[in-house]
């Protein structure tokens, strides 16, 4: 017998490789991006403090989604892309 596949569809993801510039995690500006869930900020804050033992941290900034349930807004993504060489995202509950 022949059946239709209930999962069938055409993938919309392009999968294009993005050319990433190398990041110097010892010196470059880094964004710490929280998903706004409880303790995400505290986790990132703790990491930032620990990084302070081996690098300057005044160019490591905190950013956050304004809602844990919504996608990151475009202006947040643009801010990260424009101002930071690296980003560390915390996504968990």
């Amino acid at each position: 017998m022949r059946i239709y596949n209930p999962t069938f569809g055409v993938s919309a993801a392009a999968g294009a490789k993005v050319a990433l510039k190398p990041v110097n995690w010892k010196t470059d500006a880094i964004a710490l991006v929280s998903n706004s869930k409880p303790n995400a900020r505290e986790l990132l804050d703790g990491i930032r403090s620990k990084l302070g033992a081996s690098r300057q941290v005044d160019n490591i900034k905190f950013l956050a989604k304004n809602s844990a349930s919504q996608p990151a807004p475009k202006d947040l993504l643009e801010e990260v892309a424009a101002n930071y060489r690296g980003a560390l995202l915390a996504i968990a509950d």
Partner: protein
Amino acid sequence: MIATETFKPLVMAQAKARKVEPRLIIVKHPIGGLNADELRERIEAATKGLSEATTK
């Protein structure tokens, strides 16, 4: 990206859908609900993971 072990399957499924390969630092679950002492272990693990991932 820092994710807990419990949420790794979600990250990987979403990455597969987008055909991207995330650079992941996996720590124990959960993050939310931990007190400062409990969170310290996650901070240690995440910092160690970050250090290893960025010095390769």
